[in-house]
Every structure is written in C-alpha cells, then in structure tokens.
C-alpha cells in the first residue's frame, strides 16, 4: 500500500502548485483592474514604435 503515500505526495504537491499560483496572481494585482487587460488586447498595435514594444 506504499503507493498511496506516493499518490498522497503527488496530489498535495499539485494542490500546492495551485495555491502558489493563486497567491502569486493576487500578489501581482491581477484581480485589481478587470477592465484594462480585456480592452488592451483588442487594440490594433501594428504601428507601435520600437520603444513601446521594448517596454512591454
């Protein structure tokens, strides 16, 4: 039955990954502004100057 222990470790580490992903996303403010990213993606940016592209 020692396979259960391996499964246990595997499942908790996957869950832990999700927890870390969640904490990271909160910390970097991804839930702060729900308007800009969704509109930003629709902007036509083919004529961007080099400078703005670099800063992205």
């Amino acid at each position, binding site marked *: 039955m020692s396979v259960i222990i391996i499964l246990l470790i595997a499942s*908790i580490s996957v869950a*832990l990954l999700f927890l870390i992903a969640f904490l990271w996303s909160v910390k970097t403010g991804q839930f702060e502004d729900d*308007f*800009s990213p969704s509109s*930003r993606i629709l902007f036509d940016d083919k004529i961007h100057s080099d400078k703005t592209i670099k*800063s992205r």
Partner: protein
Amino acid sequence: MPGTGKDIVSPPLCAHCGEACITQGIILEDKFFCCEGCKMVYRIINQNGLCSYYDLNAAPGITQSVKVREDKFAFLDNEKIADRLISFKDEKQTHITFYLPQMHCSSCLYLLENLARLNPAVISSTVNFTRKEAEVIFLHHNTSLRKIAELLTAIGYEPYISLNDLKQTRPVIDRSTIFQLGVAGFCFGNTMLLSFPEYLGVDAGEEGLRNIFRWANLVLSLPVFFYSALPFYQSSWKSLKHGFLNIDAPIALAVMITFVRSLWEVISGSGGGYFDSMSGIVFFMLAGRLLQDRTYRQLSFERDYSSYFPIAVSVMKEGKEMPTLLPEIKINDTLLIHNEELIPADGILTRGKAFIDYSFVTGESLPVRKEVGEMVYAGGKQTAGNIEILTVKAVAQSYLTQLWNRHDRAPEKAKSFVHQVSKYFTLVVFTIATVSAVYWQIHDPAKIWPAVTAVFIIACPCALLLANSFTNGHILRILVRNRFYLRKAGIIEDVSKVTHIVFDKTGTLTSPGEQTISYDGTPLTATQKAQIAALASCSNHPLSKAIVKHLGLTAGNLTVQGFVEKPGEGIEGFINDAWIKIGSPASSSSSSEKKGTSVYVSIENKTMGCFRFSNRYRDFVPSLLKQLQKTYSLSVISGDNAFEEENLRRLAGKKSALLFHQKPEDKLNYIQSLQKKGERVMMIGDGLNDAGALQQSDTGIAVSEQTNNFTPASDGIIAADQLEWLDRFIRLCRINRKIVIASFILSIVYNIIGLYFAVQGTLSPLIAAILMPSSSLSIVLLTFGASNGAAAALKLK
C-alpha cells in the same frame, strides 16, 4: 418657453466630445468641433496616427471648452514639490502615477497607453482603469514632469494633483485576508480528503498508514492555526484589552481548544482529531469576513479638505509669482488666485473683482460677488479673472479646515447586537461545560476532558459570526448594486435604527446642475432671443451657459462683434448691429428686490427684463418626502434664505422642521440637539458645508452626482438618482437584522444536536465533520436566499 419657432436648428455634434456645436465654423477636414480646444486635441491625435481613439468609441473626448491656465503646472518645475509626487527616480528614469479623473472608456485607455507616440521621452505608460490612474515612466533628461502633465492636459486628461498627494504614504492594498483565505481553503480541502480513511475505518493491519494520514493532517492544520486564524486572535486580544468580550474571543478560544485536543489525540495515538472541522470553520469565517469587508476602490469615505485643495499656490513676492507648497503659506502672504482656482486660506481681497463659487462649501452653485477689502473664505473657487488675497489665517486654521478637523464626535457608536448575543452565548457554553464536568466528575472522571473540550468545539459561536458576516455581505452587495455604498458592515445596523432624517436642501433635494429659469419683462421676439443666445454662447460663465441651454438656440449665422466680458458684471457686444448687454442688475442700470439670482438683459441700453434662476427640486423629491413622513421625523436644513419656505412646507409636511440661514456649525449643533432628545439621526448632505453635520450624525450619507466624484467624509455614499429609493434601503437594512436572527436560530438547532453528543463525551470527529460544514453551508444558503428575496420584495435591483 413659447414661440421659439422656426429658428431651431439642431446643431452638429462635436467629433471629439459629442457635445452640440453651439458656435459654428470650427471645422477641420470634414468634422465639426464645439470649440478650439477639441479641435486641437483632434489634431494632435490625428497627426500622431492614433485615430483608433475615435474608432473604439463614438466621440470619446472630453470637452475642452473650459481652458486650463497655461502655467497651471509651473509648480512641477519646483523640484521640492516634484520630489514629493514622484514614486521613483534614478539617473535616467522617473516614475510617476497620475490620477486622471476624466478617464472613462477604452479609447481613453488606448490614448493614454500610447503616450510615447506623443512624447518620445516617455518610455511607457500603464493605466489602472479601476483606480483611474496612469503610471508614466519617462526620461527626465529629455522632458520634464511639467511637460508630461501639460501633455496629458493638452489631450484632455488633466492630472488631478491635490494637497492630499503630499502625504507620502500611498495606501497599501491589504491583501492579507485573501492570502489567509487561500491558505485556509487549501488546507481545509486537503485535510478533509485525508480524513476520509479515518471516518471510513482503516484495517487494524494498516496502523502505519493511518498514522501517516493523521500526521499529514496535523502538518496541514499548522498554517491554518498559526497563519489563517490570526485575525481572530488579534481581534479578540484587542477586545480583551479594552475589557470587552467580542464575538471573536470565544471563536479564538474554540480554535485553540480544538487544536490542542487534536494535537494531543494524534501524539498520544488515541484518535484523529478535529483538524478538518477546525480548518473548515476558519475558512468559512474568513470567507464571510471578506464578503462583508468589501472595499470600493473608486470611493473614499475618509476624504478631508486636503483632497480638494491644490498642492501649491502662487505667492506674490516682490512682484514675482512663486509657486509655494500649501502648508508653507504663512499669514500675511499675498496669494495670486487665478481664474478657476480654489482659495486655499481665509484672506482679505486686495486686488481684482472676486466672483466666488462656493459650491464646494455651501452646495450653492451660483457665484457670489466680493469687493476689495472684503473677507473671502477658503474653499471658494474664483470664477472671473485673477485676484490677489492677503492671508489672515494659515491653511490649517481656516474656517473650512477647522470644520473638518472637529473630531469631537464623542459618543462611540453602540456595539452591534451580535456582540451582545455572543456574550450570553459564551456564558451558556461555559455553564454547560461546567455542568457536564461536574456530572462526569461524579460518574466517570476519565470522560471530563473529552466531554468538556467537545462542548467548546461544537458550541463555538462560529455559526453566529457566519450568519452575521454573510448576511451583512449580501445586503452590502445588494445596496452596491443599487449604488448605495456603505463604509463598513456595521453601518447597516445604524441605518436600521434611524428615527429622524435631516436633509440638506441645496444640492441634495435640489439638483445642482439644473436651474429653473423664468423670464420676466418685455416679451422677446425670436430674433432677439437668437441674438441673446449668440452673445451668451461667447461666455463660459455658468449663468451664460444656462441661458443658452434655456433658449435652446444655436447662434446660427449671427456674429458677435466687440464682445466684452466684465468679470462679475456681465457681457456685452454687438449682434447684427444691436448692442446687447446681459449681466447683474448694476450693469443694466436697474434695481429690483433680491429674489434669488437674476440676470438682466438690455438691448440698445433699454432694459428688457430679466432671467430669474431658481433651484430645481429633483423629480422624485415630493414622493420621497411623502413616503418618509409616514415613518420618520424629517428636517430640511439649508444655508439659503427662506424664499422657498412655502413650497418646501408643502412638500415636507406640517410636522417637519424647516431651517434656513444655517451656517455649517448650526447644522452640526442642530444634529446634536436632536441627538440629545434621543433621536437617532441620519444626515443626508452633499457639500463640505455639511461635513460637520455628516460626522456628528449617527449615519451621515453623502449624495454624489457621479460615484467617482469627491464627497465629504461620511458613513455612506449614495448616487443622487438613487436617493429616490431611500425608504426601501432603510427597510432592507432593517430586514438584515431579522435574517441574522433567523440564522442564529438555525445555528442553535445545530448546536443543540452537537451538544447532545458532546456532553456525553461521544462526539466523534465524523459527527463534527458532518455537523460543522453542513451548519455553515445551510447558513450561507439561508442568508443568501433571504437577503435576495427581501431585495426582490422591496423591488430593488
């Protein structure tokens, strides 16, 4: 207004801002503009290939008809001031965050994020739309902070820089509750999963495996106990220090007892413990807390005068203008107040004609005239040309700021009934624990420990807290949907206890932007009307604008020649060879009794008549006041003269108190006198003149025309058009209490079931694991259903 006839030409709309083009002839390519400002912005955007701005939304611009003074941002060249504003600076780059209140659509976002195309020294600009902020990074060798601010102003997004920005501490967003909730959720889910073998029974042969599960649970519960549950320890410790037992105290106690008992069980090998129940309740309670402590990023309830005041002002020193930080202004400094600037300190007018708009202070939108030598008070906005004032009081000592700083709201608001209930609850739990301890002492001393701890575990008042925080959270959510924002959940209870409602008149019952205009005198012909409209449209004065709007005409092909605007007096000019003058009584050489504000018209030196301005009540005011009279005592309090008394008496009913000529401190004192009579007062106001009264009242509600507008410090903010439903909002807040009580009863049923097992010392982790989440879940569902049902019954959104 009869007989406007055929002259009505519907004007083309401005390609930039979408407003009607009253003055014609401002055309670029094939597009019409309402003013030169809009045309200029269009040209800047067009030349830089940013025309997507106009494709994303129709006419997204901001009207440029009110010009910003050219050297308004000169103070940004002063390094001492600039240093206080920028967030980061190295040898090459400067980072600064501007607050741009005009931002409103995706076009704005597009333009602002492409700032680099307009000024190559800008490295990047990133917009936070919710907070209406743009973070600009630029190379300070190639440009300056002032130029960036001026660029933003030129394209219609004037940065709002106030005295408040001087307080270096930017509010740090506290995300710790979300982190704690995330950790608790993770541990709760996994602990529950790992507890299953324990509940389902593990074969005797697999003792080792069972121990591994138990220890894994123990490890998983550590972050919950030491990190996620922290807010409960902190809150209960704080309340204990103040010699008062709040609802968090018994919860912290229950969490600790559960943890210690479970720890002991696992170490001694006698059982699996209650780790899953413990993590579960912490998780649910944190979720409730988060729901109830919602924050409104775009609103602020703590604004003081510093958010209204400019950061710097021009001080005249030896004939030169010196931009000076506001706190550094001393008594006897001569301040130069430009047109459209706020007067930051009380002073004596020494030069120029003051025509001061005190709408910030009094809510009255019509400007007041002051002559040299008269006192002008801080908070007023100069609307006609430049003036100089000699300060007689420092900024912090001014009449208005003094009013703000009054923090003598001594009676700390009564504690919520939830804490009272929890006190009795705790008492009962202790009694039951003692009784069962005594019982088992006599019959079977070995069972004292399991029975007593089980009582504390099961009877923790977490269900009470859950019921309260989830109900509050739902009610707040419903109120927000209806654009009524409360500062915190506790205000719901204050609102529900209101017995007396005090309304401010100007700006609250009347709408500040709209005036009823009536014309008195020799009837005007359609041509004369068009001529007056043409003349008035040359001026930016609010009264002129109102007249244009009232006449509803465009200038057509009439040209105004020899236009003169005499600040504070009026405007004049030739239209089709007719010399027309519009202005205050003196300039039209006619005197009349003062009845509100009037503007006189004279054609060829012959007084024709006058336009009378009076405030207009919001459409719903009669029905609102009629509805509220049935349940509450009402007062209407106004800084105005008693001109409107009769009209108001009819609206507010016989019993209501109507007070006129009230200064800000009179309002405050009136609220105090009501409170002494035992009334629980709700004050509804809008301007800074109500600030003291809003703070003094049991619940102060600020009325806001736009929710991102500035409002004085208050307990709640309501959108002006939602004031109509005030009665329903108060009723909803009363229902809040009933829902909480119903949920209490439900939770007590669960507690009795649990206690039945607990006192016998037979509370197995399995029973606890079923009882706890199911009681929590059913409370969450009950509060959700009941509050939404109540909102639907009250016909709220």
